[in-house]
């Protein structure tokens, strides 16, 4: 049980790192940045290159991936979304999907579709004394990734709640015009939000790669969608909501993975096949029962 909990939290941590980007960008732009999963993927590959080509230490590789992903986020915002700022919502949405497909295909063109092995940057062996004393298998990897995620989330919370630019982000999220009337350069705040969200997703990409040992150009797809569901679950636009939603997604997925359903002798549904279906069932259920999400404020404008 505690074993499952640790796995769930690890998975939830990665989802949180992606979900935050969705939720923050939605906050300032009312746009689902569907290319966000691909930013995660690119971040993962930058980390892979940093680790296995340039042999950088883990922390530095994460940092490089964050910077690279932030730049990519800025380019996407500048190139694809800013020109459409006053266009109909649907145009921006279609563009977002287009950018996502573009990045996937560019990835396959450059890197090939086959998964690449990710170097085990941190010792993947279980921590022996924990296994002996408590009977839970926790790897050093999990501990480092969780600690790093916690640090990133804490840093982000601090930026959003305390810094001038963080407050400006919240102001723009609430009322873009009123923010302009304060002298806030809304374009700059939006660009910053993309950079911030992308950097965090980039870190998530490295953690994911290290955790699962592979990276491939389509790796952003499923985690991207799951994180999106997490963001909606928590209440899109809400930063604490995204963290909570991601944790719950991790729990639900890990929980479902461990069950096996024997529908009939020929039809046995294992958790891993059910997992994704459950994620989407969760999304549909929220949209029906609580469209604003767990921590979202009801009555706000939706996509």
């Amino acid at each position, binding site marked *: 049980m505690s074993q499952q909990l640790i796995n769930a939290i690890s998975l939830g941590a990665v989802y949180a790192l992606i979900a935050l980007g969705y939720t923050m960008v939605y906050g300032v732009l009312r746009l689902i940045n569907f290319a966000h999963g691909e930013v995660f993927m690119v971040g993962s590959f930058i980390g892979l290159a940093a680790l296995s080509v340039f042999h950088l230490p883990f922390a530095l590789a994460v940092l490089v991936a964050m910077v690279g992903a932030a730049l990519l986020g800025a380019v996407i915002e500048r190139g694809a979304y800013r020109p459409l700022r006053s266009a109909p919502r649907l145009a921006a949405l279609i563009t977002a999907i287009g950018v996502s497909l573009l990045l996937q295909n560019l990835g396959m063109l450059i890197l090939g579709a086959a998964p690449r092995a990710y170097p085990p940057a941190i010792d993947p062996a279980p921590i022996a004394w924990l296994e002996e004393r408590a009977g839970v298998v926790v790897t050093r990897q999990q501990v480092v990734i969780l600690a790093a995620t916690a640090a990133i989330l804490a840093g982000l919370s601090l930026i959003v709640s305390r810094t*001038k630019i963080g*407050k*400006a982000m*919240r*102001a723009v999220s*609430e*009322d873009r*015009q*009123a*923010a*302009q*009337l*304060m*002298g*806030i*350069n*809304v374009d700059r705040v939006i660009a910053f939000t993309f950079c911030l969200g992308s950097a965090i997703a980039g870190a998530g990409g490295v953690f994911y790669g290290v955790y699962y040992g592979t990276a491939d150009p389509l790796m952003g797809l499923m985690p991207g969608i799951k994180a999106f569901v997490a963001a909606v679950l928590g209440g899109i636009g809400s930063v604490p909501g995204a963290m909570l939603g991601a944790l719950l997604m991790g729990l639900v997925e890990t929980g479902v993975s461990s069950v096996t359903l024997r529908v009939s002798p020929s039809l046995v549904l294992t958790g891993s096949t059910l997992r994704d279906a459950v994620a989407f069932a969760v999304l549909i259920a929220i949209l029906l029962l609580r469209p604003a999400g767990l921590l979202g*404020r009801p009555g706000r404008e939706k996509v």
Partner: protein
Amino acid sequence: MLCLRDVDVHYGPIQALHGVSLEVAEGQVVTLIGANGAGKSTVLRLVSGLIRPTRGEVLFEGASLARVAAHDIVARGVSHVPEGRRVFAGLTVLENLEMGAYLVRGRAAIRAALDEVFELFPRLRERRGQRAGTLSGGEQQMLAIGRALMGRPRLLLLDEPSLGLAPNLVQSIFGVIAGIRQRGVTLLLVEQNAHMALRVADRGYVLETGRIVLHDTAERLAADPNVRAAYLGE
């Protein structure tokens, strides 16, 4: 200080302003009165750069604002308290005020502006840690005005500051307006309450369906039989 020259504004196919010209001299309080939908808020939105004229020009201190972004107009010394308060509901009172000082450099300067606003609205000091969305309507109006003053504007655009307030609060808002004026801030005031507006203003413009139909000193407007009939309810 502020000058509109023959301005047209369209919202899509709807023309909201027809050849509007008006002038606000430094240090004055100028009021804009008119019925619902006359285009009063449109004039203010035009000055703060939220919308653009389809014809004519807007000059602030002699320079055209045609190509100046809304946030840069704030930097030039224009603050706009929009219709309906528009405080940032999820931010605290203090954070709202900090946003008002977004372009003010230096902790000391922000501190000083904050003290001044708290002096004007002691209630805001008490409530500084509270989320703005939980303030009463009158408190939100104070916050909206205080927030605009945080940027130390030279021209303040006020859109219906007394709307929805109890009579004694209306009195105190107009008291505040007089106080703001004494600090040397120029004011362009949009009001439904023409009585109070004409009492505090130096000059007034009357707007009817997007056209200026009358402008004069506030005293003479208040004495004008047509104005009295249409806007002063006499």
